């Protein structure tokens, strides 16, 4: 059944047992919404130099948006910024592929559990759900690093 390609076991697992949920200390906080469906996320990033020491979040939304935030936390915490950006860009490329990208081994190495979202990319209405937390992370990261830059300049 086609539905199973969207609701992969991995996604449902993350939805039922989310990683790193809850708001903790951070360098920047953003609040993103998906106005078409009302999904919302508040997300904080914490950096230790250029290493992501934490991504914490709280939100409400469908299984896809919640599972995606959980996968993001699992994947990005502990990574160097450059590597995290590569993961984010690869995930974005996959989600914008309209189901045309069949993830290969190289992509799987980068995305790990996040490849499970490949099936979601066939459903245009749901792509935004999967991307909500990733866009929030990108935005929060830009703010955190801007803040760090500003601090360095004034120091």
């Amino acid at each position, binding site marked *: 059944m086609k539905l199973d390609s969207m609701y992969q076991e991995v996604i449902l697992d993350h939805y039922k047992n989310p990683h790193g949920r809850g708001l903790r200390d951070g360098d920047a906080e953003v609040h993103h919404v998906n106005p078409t469906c*009302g999904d919302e996320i508040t997300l904080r990033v914490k950096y230790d130099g250029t290493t992501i020491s934490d991504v914490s979040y709280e939100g409400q939304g469908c299984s896809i948006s919640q599972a995606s935030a959980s996968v993001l936390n699992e994947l990005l915490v502990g990574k160097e910024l450059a590597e995290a950006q590569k993961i984010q860009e690869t995930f974005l490329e996959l989600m914008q592929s309209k189901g045309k990208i069949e993830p290969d081994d190289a992509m799987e190495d980068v995305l790990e559990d996040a490849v499970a979202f490949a099936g979601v990319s066939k459903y245009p209405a749901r792509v935004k759900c999967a991307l909500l937390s990733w866009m929030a992370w990108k935005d929060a990261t830009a703010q955190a690093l801007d803040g760090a830059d500003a601090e360095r300049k004034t120091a």
Partner: protein
Amino acid sequence: MTQLPGLLDTEALRKDFPVLDRVVHDGRKLVYLDNAATSQKPRQVLDALSEYYERYNANVHRGVHVLAEEATALYEGARDKVAAFINAPSRDEVIFTKNASESLNLVANMLGWADEPYRVDHETEIVITEMEHHSNIVPWQLLAQRTGAKLKWFGLTDDGRLDLSRIDEIITEKTKIVSFVLVSNILGTVNPVEAIVRRAQEVGALVCVDASQAAPHMPLDVQALQADFVAFTGHKMCGPTGIGVLWGRQELLEDLPPFLGGGEMIETVSMHSSTYAPAPHKFEAGTPPIAQAVGLGAAIDYLDSIGMDRILAHEHALTEYAVKRLAEVPDLRIIGPTTAEDRGAAISFTLGDIHPHDVGQVLDEQGIAVRVGHHCARPVCLRYGIPATTRASFYLYSTPAEIDALVEGLEHVRNFFG
């Protein structure tokens, strides 16, 4: 098959709607339960649209050639049909817009630019309700922000009705306009017009009624409503998209200023100033949606051929059946009135902790089209502490079997996420 008293002969009616024969997702028969978002269109309307373009297409109210005159007669003929459909005292009180949102924005802008006694300014108040569609919230927020007027609203009771207990404090001598929905698109509630109109008239406030979810489903009589403005849209009542209606009382339309300027709405123009055409043309700047108006006229003919009272009875029977069947689904909570009394055929609900998006996706896989989200009425979701709802909404061609399919589909949803 379930037989209920009051049902229309849907087997015959459904033959008029080609799209209802569609099969989706590898052999699933389409079960279209998203009628509050937009209705499907009967062959009669589709034919009227193509006939208009194939035989008559011309711009209206200009040109003396045959096509221009025929197109004008068809466009104005559609206005006559709308006027009769809503029992307007005069055809000149029917303004064509592109949708209900534009109609409501038009009222807000008329009042924002009006002279006394209509003028909305920083000493006056605007009253709406917490169950409005965003299209009857945002135009008033904009007007309030631009004029300094105070925006007030009626809250909701736990069972999905307007809380009118403080009506005398909310509608006061300062109130210039009370704008509210006749039938809620998210809760299904049919609101008590008379009580609100009576209080508004006591203080001399104008009344605007958003009838978007009423006009398609029940007899609509603007004189009986005693409102000053009534807005609705064509595409929810078997008509095409791109055509809406604003009805307004003639003396108001004469007194109030135009909003959009352009061709069609003028009497004379010089480089210094212009004078305006009488209503309704004063409010119809530019080339109007001609084919769409003709299509709406055909939709009204279609609805009239069935009878709005019979459509109301059909939907009432379906709603009674639906609330009863939905009550059998474990963990299902109806957001809005839980009986069919004073209730339209749009039913919102939550299903345990399963997010409406997921509910809608699994239903779609079974061919069942519902709406999920906040239905452009986010304050209602906030009021009831929920992120969103799933909404099933019925129309004249909906059947008890489709409600059975929905209930079965929801069982499948529960198993999938259980």
